[in-house]
């Protein structure tokens, strides 16, 4: 379970929060001018990043505020929280070496160990 550092209330157990999905998807203001495809893009399409990912959380039981969080979805490491409207800060993260690969440590995906990583364990 995560401990999430609410920008207003401080570190709290994940059970107090509601996940709010991908961050920084602005609702179109001129939807009437959009094609069906463009609108479908807004409603349904997601980047679903493996790696550093900006997402929203809602502190449902506490301050009831939405905020943003930068998390490495390949390791679940939380790198930063920041307020709605702010830009994601720059952080260093242990990102997967290849698009579908695993971070050098912490991914939890021992099950899809790649040969070369196996060999590394020996050294």
């Amino acid at each position, binding site marked *: *379970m*995560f401990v999430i550092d609410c920008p207003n209330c401080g570190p709290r157990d*994940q*059970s107090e929060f*509601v*996940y709010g*999905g*991908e961050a920084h998807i602005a609702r179109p203001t001129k939807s009437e001018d959009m094609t*069906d*495809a463009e609108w*479908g*893009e807004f*409603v*349904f*399409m*997601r*980047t*679903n*990043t*493996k790696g550093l*990912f900006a*997402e929203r959380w809602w502190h449902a039981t506490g301050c009831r505020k939405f905020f943003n969080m930068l*998390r490495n*979805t*390949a*390791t*679940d490491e939380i790198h930063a929280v920041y307020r709605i409207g702010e830009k994601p800060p720059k952080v260093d993260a242990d990102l997967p070496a*290849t*698009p*579908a*690969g695993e971070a050098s440590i912490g*991914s*939890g*995906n021992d*099950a*899809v*160990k*790649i*040969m*070369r990583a196996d060999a590394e364990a020996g050294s």
Partner: protein
Amino acid sequence: MKRYSALELIRQGLTGHRGWDRVWRKPEPKESYDAVIIGGGGHGLATAYYLAKLHGMTNIAVIEKGWIGGGNSGRNTTIIRSNYLFDESAAIYNHALNLWKGLGQELNFNIMMSHRGVLNLAHDEGEMRQLKRRVEANRLNGVDSEWLDAKEVKNFCPSINISGDIRYPVLGGTLQRSGGVNRHDGVVWGYARAADAMGVDILQQTEVTGILTDSGQITGVETTRGTIRTPKVASVTAGHTSVMAKMLDIRLPVESHPLQALVSEPIKPVLNCVVMSNAVHVYCSQSDKGELVIGAGIDAQLSYTQRGNLDIIEHQMASLMELFPIFSRLRMMRQWGGIVDVCPDASPIITKTPVKGFYVNGGWGTGGWKATPGSGHVFADLIAKDEPNRIAAPFTMDRFVSGALVAEHGAAAVAH
């Protein structure tokens, strides 16, 4: 391929089991293939098998970044049923169910397909209405499905608690007798062995790291073992579907979440069927080896870690106690997680893409195991003919533009 049989087992038993063939080769990647399938899960291997068997495409490769079956295929609770609400879903899942029936024999590999029956329980008026609607739709679609009242539920599955005292009493449920469970690893291995025997190269420990195109047409893939040329690339990567699509700058309506499951210690048979309940959130069956196999919930956040939180398991166990108080003293032996690719309408994507020669099969979320043969079958058809067939057609990406979702999510109790 040496055929498996009881006789062969005895023959080998007498000679020290030294004469078995390798289940699949360990080929070096060729320079080029007629098609490359990314993802050596059940769906990917089934796709390869049907491409080779039904479409004569044998110069193909299945590329798997880890070991085959190491994705969701190796970590699901193997619940198989086809009692979906909408015609489109019923069609594809029932297609799969029919293929499951003879699959062990067809593959010459015992996949332990056990048609022991799947119960879906209703605990309130809303669920009763939904499930009855489903039973009726199923019946008219030719899907085996029946309604049981609470007593009939108890008769069919004696270990369930149908007492009226519990928080959400069992009011009734649906039963699909042809539903059940099977041995997930066996399915993966059976497909792999059969596909390999027809010449399909299964490349394990090979990760696709890039997809090559030339003026909007697929030309090959980059892998951790070099570049492979091919005019057709099919992604069947479940949790990693978005990652694959991103290589071609395609966004998909998919989010990848951890989904957990667990097994209890093995015990003598106590649960004779599959039990699923949405309101109380229980998915449970007992494996042939004796463990209770219990599906837990999905974590809200997306994650690629194949792990999940303890509280999900705790809630799950509290729920299990509602329906099966006699399981309280059993013990959880192992818990694990997978990465499921969830679509907003809880239906899969089987589609061509704007890039010619790039096909995507994914979005099966928490419930794609049951579709494995059907999914592979129709996807092979799509890859071979470059057009979705009747069963696959409703599942293209177009629906997220037009709005013609196959909204099992809103309409029915969908999970596993």
